[in-house]
């Protein structure tokens, strides 16, 4: 099976690299190290339960948060099958950026899968009030924590499932 290309989008410092490193290496680094340009991760993820579904192969494009909306017009996003758009639960502005990026991705690449990751769910004391647009959005959202690993694998497997169902 050819690996499927998934974009990891979102504002600076929301934890995109931490999410993909938790998925690929099962590790978390407390020191913030911004991504400049693009890091392309190759990985294979086995389903959570023992099923006949084969492992999902991914090429995950971890992008520089500075790209903003311009990422949608760059070569990096060509033929992506899905995007997971990340917001930081402790910074409301990044949730709004996440909503905009998700909406714009769906417009730029119709038919592809898109999911929201509300990251840093472990920081329970600092969480921002979520905007009502999030509840009304057709894009599914899940709370994640790269630090604890909460829902990280689940989010990528949900994307793999959607990609398979849509024949992408």
């Amino acid at each position, binding site marked *: 099976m050819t690996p499927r290309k998934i974009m990891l989008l979102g504002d600076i410092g929301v934890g995109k690299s931490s999410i993909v490193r938790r998925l*690929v290496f099962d590790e978390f680094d407390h020191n913030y190290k911004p991504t400049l340009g693009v890091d392309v991760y190759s990985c294979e993820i086995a389903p959570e339960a023992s099923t006949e579904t084969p492992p999902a192969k991914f*090429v995950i494009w971890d992008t520089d948060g500075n790209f903003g909306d311009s990422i949608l017009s760059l070569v990096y996003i060509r033929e992506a099958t899905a995007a997971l758009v990340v917001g930081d639960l402790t910074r409301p502005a990044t949730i709004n950026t996440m909503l905009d990026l998700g909406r714009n991705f769906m417009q730029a690449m119709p038919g592809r899968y898109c999911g929201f990751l509300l990251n840093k769910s472990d920081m329970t004391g600092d969480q921002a*009030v979520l905007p009502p647009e999030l509840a009304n959005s057709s894009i599914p959202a899940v709370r994640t924590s790269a630090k604890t690993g909460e829902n990280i694998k689940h989010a990528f497997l949900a994307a793999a499932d959607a990609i398979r169902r849509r024949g992408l």
Partner: protein
Amino acid sequence: MPFSQQQTPFGVVDFENDVESRERLRAGEILAARGAFAMVWIDHALIVRRRFGILADFIKLDASLTACIPAVIGLEADIKELHEAPDSILRIPNVSMISKAGIGPRLNLAFYAVDQFYVLVISHASGGSNLEIELSRQIRARLMAEATVAAKSQELLLANAELRIANAKLEQFASIVTHDLKAPMRALCHMTDELGSAVSSGDVEKARRELDELRHQGLRLSSMLSALLRYSSAGPRELAIEPVDTAVLVAEIVRSLPDRQLAIKVRGNWPRLETFAAPLDLVLRNLIDNAIKHHDRDGGSVIITCTDHPSALELAVTDDGPGIAPEHHDSIFLPFRSISGTSEGMGLAIVQKMVAAAGGAIHIRSNTGQSRGVTFVVHWPK
């Protein structure tokens, strides 16, 4: 072909006699050996056929391009289209490929169509050095850290300001409570004196009257303390965010009101939102109850309006009752302030406390052009 002549991707070059080409080749070899660039020749089926330079060492000969370079997965058609437009270049700048096997260097990839091949030129994203990248990283990390510190300082300033306001409110509250609870206490003391003198003089009738009054003042004191308890417990602990259909909420409040002689009208745009559900219910219910309770005529009306602004709801409860004199518009929200004297005077104090705890504000507006009635306006943040 003579030994001195070589087939290159750019045609046949006579290296023995062409000094310039020989020097160019030598310069290219030096740079490729130092890892400044590399070249890869790829056939029409996107299989790697030749490579040159240590930067391309990770690419296997006779393997598929996508297996060697995951970053080109999905771009196969774009690479093949280069033959349709021979002058065009497909660039994938600034990528680093990472897997469990290791972390690759940050590279610029550029694809060209040359004769029957595709040529991939690989170069370091920072011109052969990772210094610029590391510097940029550190600058960005510092900016992020500074932004975090600035945000925390701002939060601290805000917390200090809130603390000062809370202290001032506490002082005001203590002063009001002391003053208002003193009155029934004074009455109790006076009545026990009166009771004592009535008993001494054998005036049983007067003693009975004083005892009744004593019980009445005791009940009043107990009622005031209960109201005070309700006021002090109203606040942040009830602040749970839940999805609320405000149209359903207001309809439910109106439906639950007791039989009344007033017309209740609901107007405006009542949206669905995620907000502090219980406090919003309490605020609306209290304001509507208040408007009904203090109305002095049959056949009047109470109008409840919601205006949906981008960042807040503007909720207005308007009645055509006796109104509130402008000089009482501020003090009406203090504990134990009842204009009509028919209640403990804690309802509006609790309402204001809940609105403030939710981050909103409340004020009174006299009804424009009318001698009667009043409007309570609440700005409820979204």
